[in-house]
């Protein structure tokens, strides 16, 4: 059916044309995932959101193991902490997953507080035992 569409038919009849179509369509559609399908608003990867307001969000991750505050810097590289301070859920989830593995039968609670531009009150995520839940 696509082959009958003017311009598109000839385009899709060669491997080069199909590659062009794949790149163009995927690049046009992929950023939609951020707006309609992504659970983490801080994760702006592949969405071409350079210098966006969300990029200016400042998050403070706090981890407690069995009620005691845990210093993430003692376990993870500073560069990962920087990513965590941007509120990247998946990074924080992997961090807590590692801590759960290292501390079996312990309670690892993650509380992520994020301050956004234009908002007076911070938004808080998590606050529960991450060893019982994979996602924030």
């Amino acid at each position, binding site marked *: 059916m696509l082959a009958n569409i003017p311009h598109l038919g000839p385009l899709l*009849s060669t491997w080069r044309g199909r*590659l062009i179509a794949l790149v163009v369509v995927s690049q046009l559609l992929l950023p939609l995932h951020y707006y309609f399908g992504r659970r983490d608003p801080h994760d702006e990867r592949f969405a*071409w959101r350079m*210098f966006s307001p969300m990029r200016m969000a400042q998050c403070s991750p706090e981890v407690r193991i069995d009620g005691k505050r845990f210093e993430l810097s003692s*376990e993870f590289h500073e560069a990962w902490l920087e990513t965590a301070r941007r509120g990247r859920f998946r990074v924080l989830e992997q961090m807590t997953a590692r801590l759960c593995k290292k501390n079996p039968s312990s309670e690892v609670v993650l509380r992520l507080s994020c301050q956004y531009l234009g908002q007076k009150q911070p938004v808080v995520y998590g606050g529960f035992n991450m060893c019982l839940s994979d996602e924030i």
Partner: protein
Amino acid sequence: MAKKKRPQRSKPRPARAAARNEADLPTARVVNAPQAPAPAPAFWFGFEVSWAKLLVARVVIFGILALDAVLQVRHAPRYGASDFNVANLGFLDSMGPGRVAYGGCQLAIAALLTFAVFGVATRYVLPVATVLYAWLYFGSQLDSYQHHYLVALVLAIACFVPWQRPSRDRDSGREMTAPSTPVRSWALRLLLVELGIMYLWAAISKLDTVWLDGTTLSTQIVGGLRSMIEGTVGFAVVSVMVIVIELTLAFTVWLRPAWKIAAPLGLLFHLGIVATGFEIGLFAYVMLALYILVIPDRIWRGAAEISAVEMLGKATRAITDSRGQIMLGLLAVVGVPLVVFNRLPHARTLGFLVIGIAVVAMTIAQIKKRRGGAVPAAALAVLMLWTVVDRSTTVAIDYYRFWGGSQRRIGDRDQAERAYRGMLEIEPTSEIANFYLGRILLADGRDPEGLERLHDAQHDEPRRARAFVEEARWLATQGKRLEAIAKAKDAVFADPSDAEAKAFFDSLQGGGKQPNRPKPDDDL
């Protein structure tokens, strides 16, 4: 329907095949007048740029990307630290690059892209560079720069561009390629469309009240540009202007008749980003380099006719078209010392590998009686690039400093010691390396060498108190109170403003409790 169209596409093939035979260059397509009709759709398959433009784009784009790759080496120590990784693509979580792989791959990418600058085997070096670059980017979320995502896409598309000089007549040796020779490439059109899509989404992402009222931009821009904006139109107006510019570029950058608008607008826009001083590495320059493709062809054709440029072109061709023995000799004489002189991690091993590859490629070229002068010239350029970057920047020192700092903080003393010893090899008078190595050695019970390192640190920066304080602490733990007081006094003399030194000196004199050692975070 699709099958019926195939005969039309096959029309230009005999001419192309003949041209390939003449050129003996499989990656090049000679486009002689009259041109064979472009296969449909002509929007993609009929897109042409002049050879002059393509050559400038090749040299500048890959040159900047090669430089950027070497500069990235300083970030290698963050990769693989504590065996923790979260990839940009989930399935790569456990296959992300480590410190050694990241550093080595960035140098390899720089080498491959330098070969591309010289037009050497672009059909092979670009895909390899693309795979390495994609692995480094998609393999870890440590690289969160969206422009590195763009570079990965640009490199992937660039693999399909015929970057090498179209041809010269094999029998007569007559140059068949003029600056105005059109080169047809659908991949170049795709590259520009990709830029257009990026601008479109970038504009859409800014349709947000905190962008539109200028709040976001006002938190990002500092310095002179901030004062200028505040003193003129204000951040709200500039924020709206950014969206208008990005939308305009989204619909003009890939459309040849609109290049008159896109070229000046895009160049000014990205020059403006350079002026903001955003910490985005060389990205603004990469974008400016991509605009070489948007600047109308006649400008590049005109530039090629300037006598100085013509002379430069002839000189370059004389090197690249030669059999290459002279360049190979030069590579041996200059290249080997450059490799030995280089301090970047893994550069010596990779440097000799580059020389080896050049020698093998030259040998093959000699056997096949082909011109091969570009290969040793490119190899020499690789070694020069690495060494110039090493000696004119702090990349090598930063590499060891970041490595030592991160390992020290997460408690891996062995790795930290290796890092600081590596740092001292390239910078023996580093106070940072001597100080932290001294601390590690003292904590490990290797007192004589630890003290020696602290003395070196005191000598390296006599106005900095911490190495004196550290020695005073050690003396105090050994029960040598009077010597500790004397050393603490030296610390206060070294830097009277150092609160820790003063507090420690006071505590020793007063016989009170010694203050806790602060956590130094100033030397990442």
